[in-house]
C-alpha cells in the first residue's frame, strides 16, 4: 500500500517491522524523528517486547547496543555527524565483537564549523570501522534497506550502518510502500546470534588479543567484509523477490535506455560505453542526477549512472564492470579528505586503477549546500568538454575564498 510518509517515520516503521528487542539512541539532528517515532511505538505497545533506552550520549547509545546485542537481542540505534564521531570508539568495538547491530546514520556534515546539514562526511569517516555501510537513494530504499540490513547483519554477524541523507531524505515526505508485517516476518526470522552471553554456556566476549593472534583477527575481519558483498547481493535479491517488486541494490546502473526506470544491477544493465560518461555517487544526489539526465541528453551528453548502495564492502568489481569503456568517470563525492580529495573518489580510483579512464572527483553538497540539476549539468558539460579538473568543488563561491587564508 502506497503511503505518503516522512522518511524518518517510514524508517521507524520499517525498523518496527523488524521487531527489535532493544532500541536506544541519543538525539541528534537529523536522526531524531526516527527515534522519536520508535519511542512512541514502544510506549504504545505497537512495538512489543522491546525496550527503548534514552541514553546520555551517542557513546552510550552504541555501548547499550553492544551490550544488548551481546546478550542476543536484535538492536537498533541511530545517529549522525558528531554523534557518530562521539561513538566512534564503540563503533569499532561493535564490529570487532561481531555484533549484528543495525544503525541508521542520517548523514550530516562534521564540524567545525558546526553544521547540521547533509553531506556524507560522518559515515564515510568510519569507513575503516569494519561496519557495513549501505546507502539509500530515496526513502523507499531506506525502508527496504533496514529490513535487508538486519538480514545481512545477522547472517554475517556484522554491524550495518544504513546511511540516508539527513533532512533531504529523513525529513522529506515521499510516497512509499512499506512491506507488511507478515512479509517481514517471513523474510527475517528471529535473531539467532552466532555468539552471545548465555548462562547455559558461559563464554567470555571481548578478549584481549596479543600480537600472536591480532593480525589473524584483522585478516578474518577483512575476509568477512570481502565475502559480505555476495551475501548482500543475495539478500537484496531475495528481498525484492519476496516482495515481488524492485528494491534496493548494492550497485545500480541506469541510463536513459535502461529497461527499468530505476535501473538495475550490473548483471541486468549494460555497462557504460564509449561516448558516455559514468557518473558514480551514493545517496539522494543520484536521484537529482538522474532527473538531470534527460536535459543533458538533449545537449548530447550521454550519461550512465552508477549508484552505489554498498559503500562498505566496496563493490570494486561491480564498479569496474559498470564503468565499462566509458570516456570518463565523474564521482559525485559528498565527503572530503582535506589534502587528498573525495573520499568515495579514492575508493573508485582504486577500483579502476588499471582501466586508464580519466576520473573526476566532484565535491558536491557539503554541509547542506543544495545540489541542483543545473549545477550537476554544468559539471557534466564541463566533463564532456574535457574542462573538468581532477578535483572540483561544485558551486564553490570563488569570491569567498579568493584572498582568504
Amino acid at each position: 500500500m502506497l503511503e505518503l510518509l516522512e522518511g524518518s517515520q517510514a524508517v521507524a516503521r520499517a525498523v518496527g517491522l523488524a521487531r527489535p528487542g532493544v532500541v536506544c539512541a541519543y538525539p541528534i539532528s537529523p536522526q531524531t524523528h526516527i527515534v522519536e517515532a520508535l519511542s512512541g511505538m514502544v510506549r504504545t505497545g505497537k512495538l512489543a517486547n522491546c525496550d527503548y533506552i534514552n541514553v546520555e550520549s551517542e557513546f552510550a547509545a552504541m555501548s547499550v547496543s553492544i551490550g544488548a546485542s551481546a546478550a542476543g537481542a536484535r538492536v537498533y540505534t541511530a545517529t549522525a555527524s558528531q554523534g557518530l564521531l562521539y561513538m566512534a570508539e564503540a563503533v569499532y568495538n561493535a564490529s570487532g565483537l561481531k555484533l549484528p547491530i543495525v544503525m541508521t546514520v542520517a548523514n550530516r556534515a562534521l564540524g567545525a564549523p558546526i553544521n547540521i546539514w547533509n553531506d556524507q562526511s560522518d559515515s564515510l569517516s568510519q569507513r575503516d570501522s569494519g561496519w557495513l555501510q549501505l546507502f539509500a537513494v530515496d526513502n523507499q530504499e531506506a525502508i527496504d534497506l533496514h529490513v535487508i540490513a538486519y538480514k545481512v547483519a545477522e547472517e554475517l554477524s556484522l554491524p550495518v550502518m544504513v546511511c540516508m541523507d539527513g533532512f533531504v531524505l529523513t525529513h522529506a515526505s515521499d510516497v512509499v510502500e512499506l512491506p507488511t508485517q507478515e512479509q517481514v516476518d517471513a523474510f527475517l526470522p528471529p535473531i539467532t546470534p552466532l555468539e552471545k552471553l548465555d548462562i547455559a554456556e558461559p563464554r567470555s566476549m571481548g578478549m584481549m588479543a596479543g600480537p600472536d593472534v591480532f593480525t589473524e583477527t584483522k585478516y578474518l575481519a577483512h575476509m568477512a567484509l570481502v565475502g559480505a558483498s555476495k551475501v548482500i547481493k543475495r539478500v537484496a535479491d531475495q528481498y525484492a523477490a519476496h516482495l515481488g517488486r524492485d528494491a534496493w541494490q548494492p550497485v545500480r546502473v541506469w541510463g536513459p535506455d535502461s529497461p527499468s526506470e530505476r535501473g538495475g544491477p550490473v548483471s541486468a544493465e549494460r555497462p557504460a560505453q564509449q561516448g558516455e560518461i559514468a557518473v558514480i555517487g551514493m545517496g539522494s544526489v543520484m536521484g537529482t542526477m538522474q532527473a538531470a539526465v534527460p536535459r543533458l541528453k538533449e545537449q548530447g551528453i550521454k550519461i550512465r549512472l552508477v549508484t552505489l548502495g554498498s559503500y562498505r564492502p566496496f563493490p570494486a568489481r561491480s564498479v569496474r564492470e559498470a564503468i565499462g569503456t566509458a570516456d570518463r568517470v565523474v564521482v559525485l563525492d559528498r565527503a572530503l579528505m582535506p589534502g587528498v580529495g573525495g573520499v568515495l573518489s579514492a575508493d573508485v580510483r582504486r577500483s579502476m586503477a588499471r582501466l586508464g579512464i580519466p576520473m573526476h572527483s566532484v565535491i558536491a553538497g557539503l554541509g547542506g549546500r543544495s545540489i541542483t540539476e543545473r549545477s550537476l549539468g554544468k559539471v557534466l558539460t564541463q566533463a564532456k568538454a574535457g574542462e573538468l579538473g581532477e578535483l572540483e568543488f561544485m558551486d564553490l563561491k570563488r569570491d569567498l575564498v579568493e584572498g582568504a587564508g
Partner: protein
Amino acid sequence: MAKTHIPFMQTGTLVVGNRLLDEEDRAVQSYQNRPSTLTRGHRACQGCAEALAARWVLDTAMEVTQGKLMVANATGCLEVFSTLYPESAWRVPWVHSLFANAASVATGIAAANHARGRDDIRVIAQGGDGGTGDIGLACLSGMFERNDDVLYVCYDNQAYMNTGVQRSGATPPAARTATTPAVGPHPGNVFGQGKFVPKIAMAHDIPYVATATVADLRDLEAKVRKAMSHRGARYIHILVTCPLGWGTKTADSIKMARLATRCGLFPVFEAEYGEVTAVTKIRSQAPVEDYLRPQRRFAHLFGAKADEAALERIRGAAERNIRRYNLLPEGGVA
C-alpha cells in the same frame, strides 16, 4: 540480607568460614563448591586485591541468582589479566567492550534480557576507579539516572594501575604516582577536593549504594546480597589494595585495606535512596600513619623529610570522614 546477631563463635564472621556457624550463615567464599567465578590461571599480580574482590562479588551474586548472571567489564587490569585470548578466567557470561562504557553495556544486556522476559537474569557491570569515576562517569551516571536494573561494582585501587600507575580522580592526596611524582615543593598528588563516586551515586537517589573493602568479606557479601535484593541501579564501591601501585607487600593486601578503614580514610557504609542507612563502625582505630607508612607511594611523607603539613591534612581528612559518617562506636573510642 540483614546482618543477624550471631552468638560468640570464636572468630564469628571475621574469618571467611566458620564451621561453628549454621550453614546458611556462612560466607559463600567458604563453600567447598563455591562458583569461583574468577578462577585460577588469571594473570593478576601477586597479592592483587581486585582479583579477590571480583571473585567475592561475583560468587555471591552467582549464589544469589543461582547462576543467572551476566557481567560487563570495563577495560582495565581486571579485564586484561583475566581474558588474554584464548584463555578466560571467568566462569560467567562475560563481555568486555571498552574502558568507559561498562555501565552502558550492562544496561544493554539488562534491556535485552527484559525485552525477552528474562528479568531473572541479573546483570553486573564492573570496572576500576578510572573506568568508573573518570572516563566512565557519564555512562555510569546515565545508568543511575535511568535506574537501569544493573549493579555496578567499582574496584577502587586509586590510580590507573593497568597503564603503569598514573593518577586518577580517585588517587588520594600526596600519593606518588607516575604522573604525580614525589618531587618538587609539593610532592605526590595534589590536595584537590576529591571525587568520591559513592556520593555521586547517592546524588542519583538510586536504591542502593555501598562501600566496602577487601578487608571485610562478610560485609561485602552481605552488601552484594542486599544489592541483588533490589531492582534498579545499584552501586558498590570497593577499596582494593594494589601492591604494585601502592608499594606494599603482596601479603599485606588485606591488612592495608583494613588499615584504611581503621584510620578513617575509607568510610564503609550503606545508603538507600540517597540516604546513609548503615555505617560499619571502626573496630579498633589506628592512626593514619599506620596506614600510610607501609606504602611506598607515601614514603616521602616520612623519614628525614617528613611532611608534617601533608600528614596533618590527611589526618584531617580521616577525622572528617569519622565525623561525617559517625564511624566511631558509641562512646567515641575504638
